[in-house]
């Protein structure tokens, strides 16, 4: 197990370097002046001053070296747009907010979605099953900006006095409910369908029939045998999902006015804030790598066969 983890951590380094290289290449390819935000052209002298300040006057391999050094010392440099903030400031201020939002959304998705899938599978073709799957389809198909706007309009504006939900912001428990549900709705439906599908498949397996024939309690059969095997695809899906949820949803954060990191994934590219783009892309990569690692470790507990394969 330890060897496995160490090897995986070691392989993270080339992956991060590749991410930096690709991000750097793409940022340079799309061109555009990071400092020109309005129609006003920047006088040549001022452009020189800015290029000098942010190392944009150096050859590309020197700029690349700056980024690599920055990532490995976790000193990601100053933001080109927000001149009094460093990328580290931006990340340390906004990432915890998005992480909390993503975590709550994931919690909602898991707590509601997985039991929904399980019950739907156990009561296949019942009214509950059809109802749950119809709800899943709708929840997955309806875009998040629509659900967010509808939630805000009804639960915060129209019935705000009754529910106590605010119309914007991220302070206090009440402000976290609607965005978490809006963000967690699609993953919830995804988990529900996934778990239901896998459970139905597992329930057909011979060893389940054997267990039933042997006279084991149905609850134990489901809880111990069926569930463990059915959750593997859900756990696989959870890893990258967690990465994306935790780095914030641009749409949800914008509509609920939540000061998260999601907006930067869009605005840093459109404003060509190279240092922020680089920093947050690397952050997302690290998160996904860590999430995948945790999932692989979790596999060992869920499916002992993989444990043997690994060593």
């Amino acid at each position, binding site marked *: 197990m330890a060897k496995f983890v160490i090897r995986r951590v070691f392989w993270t380094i080339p992956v991060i370097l590749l991410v930096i290289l690709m991000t750097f290449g793409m940022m340079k390819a*799309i*061109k*555009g*002046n990071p*400092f*020109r*935000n*309005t*129609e*006003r*052209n*920047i*006088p*040549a*002298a*001022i452009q*020189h*001053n*800015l290029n*000098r*300040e942010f190392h944009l006057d150096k050859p590309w391999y020197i700029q690349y070296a700056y980024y690599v050094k920055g990532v490995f010392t976790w000193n990601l440099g*100053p933001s080109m*747009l*927000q*001149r*009094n*903030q*460093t990328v580290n*400031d*931006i990340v340390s*201020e*906004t990432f915890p907010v998005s992480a909390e939002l993503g975590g709550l959304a994931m919690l909602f998705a898991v707590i509601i979605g997985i039991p929904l899938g399980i019950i739907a599978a156990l009561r296949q073709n019942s009214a509950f099953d059809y109802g749950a799957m119809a709800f899943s389809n709708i929840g997955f198909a309806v875009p998040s900006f629509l659900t967010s*706007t509808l939630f*805000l*309009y009804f639960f*915060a*504006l129209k019935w*705000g006095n009754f529910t106590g939900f*605010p*119309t*914007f*912001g*991220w*302070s206090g428990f009440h402000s976290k409910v609607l965005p978490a549900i809006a963000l967690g709705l699609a993953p919830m439906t995804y988990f529900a369908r996934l778990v239901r599908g896998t459970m139905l498949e597992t329930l057909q397996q011979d060893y389940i029939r054997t267990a039933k024939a042997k006279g084991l309690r149905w609850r134990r059969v489901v809880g111990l045998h069926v569930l463990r095997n059915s959750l593997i695809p859900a756990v696989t899906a959870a890893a990258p999902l967690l990465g994306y949820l935790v780095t914030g949803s641009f749409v949800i954060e*914008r*509509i*609920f*006015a939540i*000061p*998260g990191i999601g*907006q930067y994934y869009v605005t840093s590219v*459109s*404003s*060509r804030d190279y240092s922020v783009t680089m920093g947050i892309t690397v952050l997302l990569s690290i998160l996904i790598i860590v999430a995948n690692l945790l999932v692989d470790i979790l596999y060992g507990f869920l499916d002992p066969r993989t444990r043997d394969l690994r060593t």
Partner: protein
Amino acid sequence: MWVGLALALALTIAGSAFAASHASSKSTTVTISIGAEPPSLDPGLATDTTSATIIANINDPIIRLSQTPALTPLHTGLAQNWKVKGSTVTLYLRHNDHWTNGKPVTAQDVVGSWLRTISPELAADYAYQFYGIVGAQAYNSCDPSKADCNALRAKVGISAPNKWTVVIHLVSPQPWFIQQLSHTSFIPTYLPAIAKYGNKWTEAANIVTDGPFKLASWKHNASLTLVKNPKWRNASSIHVNRINIPIIVDAGTALNAYKAGKLQIDTSGFNPTDIPSLKKLPDWHVFPNLGTYYYGFNVKTITDVNERKALAAAIDRHAIVKYIGQLGQIPAQTFTPQGIANWQLINKSKWLPINGDDTASGLAIAKSYMAKAKNPVMNINLYVNNSAGHVQIAQAIQANWQKLGVSVNIKVLEWKQYLQFLGPPPDSSVGAYRLGWLADYPEDYDFLSLWTCKSGNNNTNWCNPQYDSLINQAVHTPNTEARVSLYQKAEALLTGKNGDMPIAPIYFYVGAYLEKTNVKGFYANPLGTDFFDGISVS
């Protein structure tokens, strides 16, 4: 027992009601939404209007402008008085302005701050505002890694002969310089705080300011809070104790919050679909925003001036403003906007029809010019940046130009790539493009100088030496009447009947905000800065 409990409950309710009303009469709080996180609250580094608004309210601008269309410089700013003699401007600062740490704001603060903004090390975007000062451009253009810039720093024409006087030597007499001083880039900063905290000096715990409000807190991307500065020289005139400023980017969310009563003033912008219903409310306020929305022609592609005049005349400005703009923008027949000093005289040569399509005469004029064109280009690439409003206007103009037999390919580009594409010089495929220009200061030079041959904002390839000489003359003409006459000739060369028409002006900008009917005194000035010091709640 129940009677006792009921009595206790009644007293508690009455007590809290009393406390609430007593509290509200003691402490007035207003919540104003803004549409973006301010990129920087450093007067030397801020480039956008959101930052400028906050900066202008927590500091004392050197010059405050009147709240009338004339934008007259008032004596209520940091500069109590001034003297303009040729190219020398002398500012006499008031003696009763203090930083929040109690120290007085002095001329040395002003000079030191300005030199900092001009310095090449700071790499300030708005350093060009200072280029009218002797030696400023040279100092700003110096490369500190290649030369010793301190010698050039010493040659910059600003000095503080004593604690309260600032002397400025300009490169030429610029009578509008006093109005230009109202720009936030001229606001002095407390240099010891910058030395101590470096980049972090603008955080609420570190910032030192001298204005009617203090920055009490700044939760990045979430909200700012301003509180009344009790030590401000004119604190008795401020009737609001606390201003909460949540950052709400989405126009729909801001409107929801406004309707729920969580905001008293909404400056976050509006969705076009909401505007027709909002316009009917007494809360709706529209204000002029000094600037022009225009289409530029690539004169190397559309070479015939008659075709350009035809295209400019065919634009149905009235319909665009009414159905797409919807805010009450003013149809533009000239590049110089309404509201610039002496604009009526400058725009004497205006002739472009406003109703290009509504009235047959507008279209007839356009067709007559098109007939005079020798080898007109019948297929034009029209470039716009990717925003719904711009695309809609492009489609409207495509239909207008169709009536002249000209077919238009609308090409939409992402903003930064768009700017790169336009150069100057613009890409050869460009036939026409859209841009806007908002004023830095209310003098026509800020607008007409765009169209000189070497201007970095001239994306038309148009170069007319006669126009250049008129503009060059104007900037050296202190006499207002003579200068206005030069602007008039320049505008005529640009958009007049006998002009070259390298651009087709479309409308003059306006802005809008919502303000609850019991709130008064919020002022959005035509240069894009909002002022809170006049706010009162009834």
